């Protein structure tokens, strides 16, 4: 298959649809995470999902995606509670708490994984696929689940836009106005957990983090308004999902996840370079313009000063 023929294949259409929605919803959620300085939460949660998936497999004994999703979500929610508990009740800061939860949960997951390997139902190939992610291997029912959940995430973000906005910029003020800040905080975490869990099977553990971070950081370069940033970030995520899946379908052996992340990274680099006001090129141009202006003013002042001296008006 080459070029645009791939779009005619119904299977590809489904997968494209799924990736686009996944990119869109994680981009939207990511901008809130970015403003709340929780960008690496996605990375920690994606790793923390491993023991959940293993326990789900040990209990049910089947490689059903649904049970994996439930296990991963439960582990993810536990992880957010643990991170919250550590940062609230001890003097350990958020970054260390994230690192601790990420490595301890993942390490525990590896212990469980070796237990599964050693037990008689030793075939854990499905687990591998789930953890490293390959969108092309998804079947239509997976894509359906992904689409429904993505739409749910986007709807929630639209419904709670005002609350999340307040939470991102001034949680103290939000508490003062009587908003249930702790609940909203946990709700936002829950939405991120859901996005991560759904995203893992499409792009894999490590790279899911990127979909929550990169589009949001890129969007931040273009605007100072949250509404615009959320829309842009969603759009960047959507484009990355589309490009990643498209290139992956054309070149058969290339995995979807890394390509999606690379697409997002290219958008990020373009933003760093070309964004108005904050971009590198805009800054260089501005500096040049300012220097020119200053030099001109200086010259003018000098000229004026000379005139003043001549006319004896100084002093």
């Amino acid at each position, binding site marked *: 298959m080459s070029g645009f023929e791939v779009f005619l294949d119904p299977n590809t259409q489904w997968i494209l649809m799924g990736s686009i929605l996944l990119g869109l919803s994680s981009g939207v959620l990511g901008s809130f995470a*970015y403003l709340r300085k929780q960008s690496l939460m996605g*990375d920690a949660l994606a790793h923390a999902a491993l023991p959940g998936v293993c326990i789900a497999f040990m209990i049910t004994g089947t490689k059903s995606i649904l049970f994996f999703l439930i296990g991963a979500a439960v582990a993810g929610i536990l992880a957010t509670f643990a991170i919250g508990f550590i940062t609230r009740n*001890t003097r350990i*800061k958020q970054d260390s708490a994230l*690192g601790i939860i990420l490595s301890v949960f993942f390490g525990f997951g590896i212990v469980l994984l070796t237990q599964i390997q050693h037990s008689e139902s030793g075939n854990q190939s499905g687990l591998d696929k789930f953890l490293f992610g390959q969108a092309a291997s998804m079947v239509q029912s997976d894509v359906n689940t992904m689409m429904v959940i993505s739409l749910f995430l986007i709807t929630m973000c639209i419904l709670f836009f005002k609350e999340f906005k307040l939470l991102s910029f001034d949680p103290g003020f939000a508490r003062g106005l009587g908003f249930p800040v702790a609940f909203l905080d946990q709700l936002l975490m829950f939405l991120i957990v859901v996005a991560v869990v759904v995203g893992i099977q499409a792009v894999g553990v490590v790279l899911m983090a990127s979909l929550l971070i990169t589009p949001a950081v890129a969007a931040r370069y273009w605007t100072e308004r949250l509404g615009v940033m959320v829309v842009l970030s969603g759009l960047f995520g959507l484009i990355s999902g589309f490009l990643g899946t498209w290139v992956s379908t054309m070149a058969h052996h290339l995995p979807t996840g890394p390509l999606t992340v690379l697409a997002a*990274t290219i958008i990020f680099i373009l933003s760093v370079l070309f964004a108005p006001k904050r971009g*590198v090129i805009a800054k260089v141009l501005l500096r040049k313009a300012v220097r020119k202006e200053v030099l001109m003013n200086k010259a003018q002042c000098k000229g004026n000063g000379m005139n003043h001296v001549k006319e004896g008006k100084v002093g």
Partner: protein
Amino acid sequence: MNDFWIIFTGALVAASCSLVGCFLVLRRMAMVGDAISHSVLPGIVIAFLISGSRDSVALMLGASILGLVTVFLIQMFQNSGVQSDASIGVVFTALFSVGIVLVSLYTRDIDLDLDCVLYGEIAYVPWNTVEILGVTLPKSVWSVGGALLVGLFLIGLFYKQFKVCSFDPAMAAAIGIPVAFFHYLLMGLVSMTTVASFESVGAILVVGMLVVPPATAYLLTERLGVMIVLSIIIGILSSVMGYYLAYLLDASIAGCMISVAGGLFVLAVLFSPSHGVLAKKWMRRKALQDL
């Protein structure tokens, strides 16, 4: 003897990671270790493609270069106004993706096992020996031990500077310490330690040992020197106990070592005499009674 080498390697990794990890925890950069251990992948693949062998000197060189590039890029984006955690996230996921794409493009038929790179297995340590100066030791003991010695030497030499830079960079700058230089020196140490360790014991053990023992020690003391010593002891303790746990359960050694470290951390969170949750509750109750 094999048991000894595995435990010894684990203890070396724990000690060298805890040493630099203390400064990362204090400087709120705990996730840098995680970032470096992922972003060195393209360096390893490129070194492999150029040298055509799995000779570990070339691979380590490639990894080290990428480690420094990662640190540099993170700092660059941070300086241009991106939040520090977000710049870490953008950089390491991008580099990791480049690595995976390179692997799938070029090494499909060649034996470069991704699992081995990312989840290097500490159980194989005793069988991979190298002879240097007439002494035959497991390769990992050479590399991690070397990293530990370099770390001890540099941190011992510049202990005061590192200390001031971690607690009060503004003051450090004011009294004339080259803050940027010590930042890059620390990051270089982190990068070296990570690269030296993860090839033999797996990325996740390194990431865990960089954060968990220092954070545990952070809850137990107010003094930096004590914190470093404590975190090294806790790290070594976790690797010894983790090994025996793995032996009992017949499970992944690295996974068990981190799980034990996690268990010790939970104990510290609950029972630390100065910062534990229970101690704080008890002190609050006592304060109320006194009232």
